[in-house]
């Protein structure tokens, strides 16, 4: 099944059936809905946008509206099997505490983000067009995260990257991911 968000298919594959899954920044609930259908998970979400929360309720999902930081604090230690942060890490005010928090409430974390070290991004930066979102793009403020940054940050937090999968579109990238991966998905756990 081709999807608008290739990382979702990978995340769905990574998660065992019947587990408890918390999606942080779950948007309109599309990923959780897929997980429900394909893996019969026990699904919940945290989402800050009211319209998205409504869309989730319309799908039959239970969602706590609010910021991820504030939402995470509501959950007890180890109350989830998986906490997902898909394409959200770069938009967080304080990403590192959130990584720590998600591994407080869940045994495993799944984090996906766009690789800012992809050769096109490097070329763009090298030719003077800057890194990250463009001034005139109208997109919200977001960090540009490279694989090396992610490795260093997780190591410093005492987080192990148990599996790390790289993709370019729907193509799996094995060699030179730091240059060739567009999307990367890490399965994390506390060391």
């Amino acid at each position, binding site marked *: 099944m081709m999807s608008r968000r290739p990382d979702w298919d990978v995340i769905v594959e990574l998660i065992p059936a*019947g587990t408890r899954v918390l999606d942080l920044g779950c948007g309109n609930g599309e990923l959780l809905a897929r997980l429900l259908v394909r893996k019969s998970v026990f699904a919940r979400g945290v989402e800050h946008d009211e319209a998205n929360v409504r869309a989730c309720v319309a799908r*039959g999902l239970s969602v706590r509206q609010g910021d991820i930081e504030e939402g995470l604090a509501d959950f007890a230690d180890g109350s989830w099997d998986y906490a997902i942060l898909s394409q959200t890490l770069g938009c967080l005010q304080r990403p590192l505490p959130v990584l720590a928090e998600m591994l407080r409430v869940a045994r495993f974390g799944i984090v996906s983000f766009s690789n800012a070290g992809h050769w096109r991004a490097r070329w763009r930066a090298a030719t003077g067009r800057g890194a990250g979102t463009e001034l005139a793009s109208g997109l919200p403020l977001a960090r540009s995260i490279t694989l090396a940054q992610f490795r260093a940050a997780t190591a410093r937090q005492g987080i192990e990257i148990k599996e790390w999968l790289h993709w370019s579109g729907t193509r799996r990238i094995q060699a030179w991911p730091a240059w060739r991966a567009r999307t990367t998905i890490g399965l994390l756990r506390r060391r």
Partner: protein
Amino acid sequence: MSSVQIQTVAPEMRLQGGAALGPVDLAYETYGRLNERKDNAILICHALSGDAHVAAHPEVPGQRPGWWEAAVGPGKAFDTDRYFVVCSNVLGSCYGSTGPASIDPRTGRPYGLSFPIVTVADMVEAQRRLLDALGIEKLLAVAGGSLGGMQALQWSVAYPERVRSAIVLAATASSSAQSIALNELARQAIYADANWDRGSYYGRIPPHAGLALARMVGHVTYLSEASMKAKFGRRLRHREDYGFGFAPEFQIETYLQHQGHRFTERFDANALLYVTKAIDYFDLAYGRANLAEAFRDVAAHFLVVSFSSDWLYPPAQSKELVRALLQNDVDATYVEVRSDYGHDAFLLEIERLAGLTRDFLAQTAEKRFQARRRRQSAFAQGAGI
């Protein structure tokens, strides 16, 4: 049933405060039909000054609209073609249920201040007896805003096995100091009226000035700075320029006076004292280590909605409630609706509430009722990775 009915729910009821009260009557109205499996009943709980008439009965032409007319009826959020809706007037109020204006059978005269203090738990206990009388064992949902939301919360805690879902709008699990303060202002306004006469004004001139002032205080707490600015601003009524005097001239002044006056035509001053007191005593953490402990045995799933400009029960209080629910792994959805309507938004933002409520009720109707929640993870059950 097409109009208000009275049910004697108990010859005598022991109240939370220790006093005995009897007989206890509740006024109620019902809408739609209870299905054969008796699993489509929804209890709607009203706020401070509401009554059992939540909506007009479509089969009765010319009936006055109810207090939640836009939300209850055929095809509406609480769709009476699908659900059997029950709404009762709370214990202690003055719309047919037993309250301070009712006749005390021991004296043959209105109770007045000899009426015992009632709490939200007592209100819910009386409703429970009413549902028993109606043959309703399980509620598909219990829903309400403000004091109505407190009743919904109390229901889910007191009778976890009878409530499949709770819709809690613009409410709190514990009355805050600010809300107690505002209620006390309203009560002091009534006490200060000489006509109140320690509540024994029945048959004489009631404390209209005190009750009107109490309502004005209350009414301000239901609005917001933004809604008052939009609705009234600094506009004058019947004048082009300032009168430089004390006669009410700003539109907000005349509006409040009008609201206060109208309220005296429909509400009993003592009932306002009793119902506000019940709100003040409401605290689900009472007698427990913390709020989370209150929800330990809750089996219902929740829709909790707050409104961004509600300063009477602000979103932070709903979030506190949601945190206590989530810590117990209760199935809870929380929505903060952006609205300028203040506390009154739960009565006014019907369009936006309707979709949420409809989807949530559909979800509830689908979910099989689970007496106990899924606490155990797949890992704990040995599924492994």
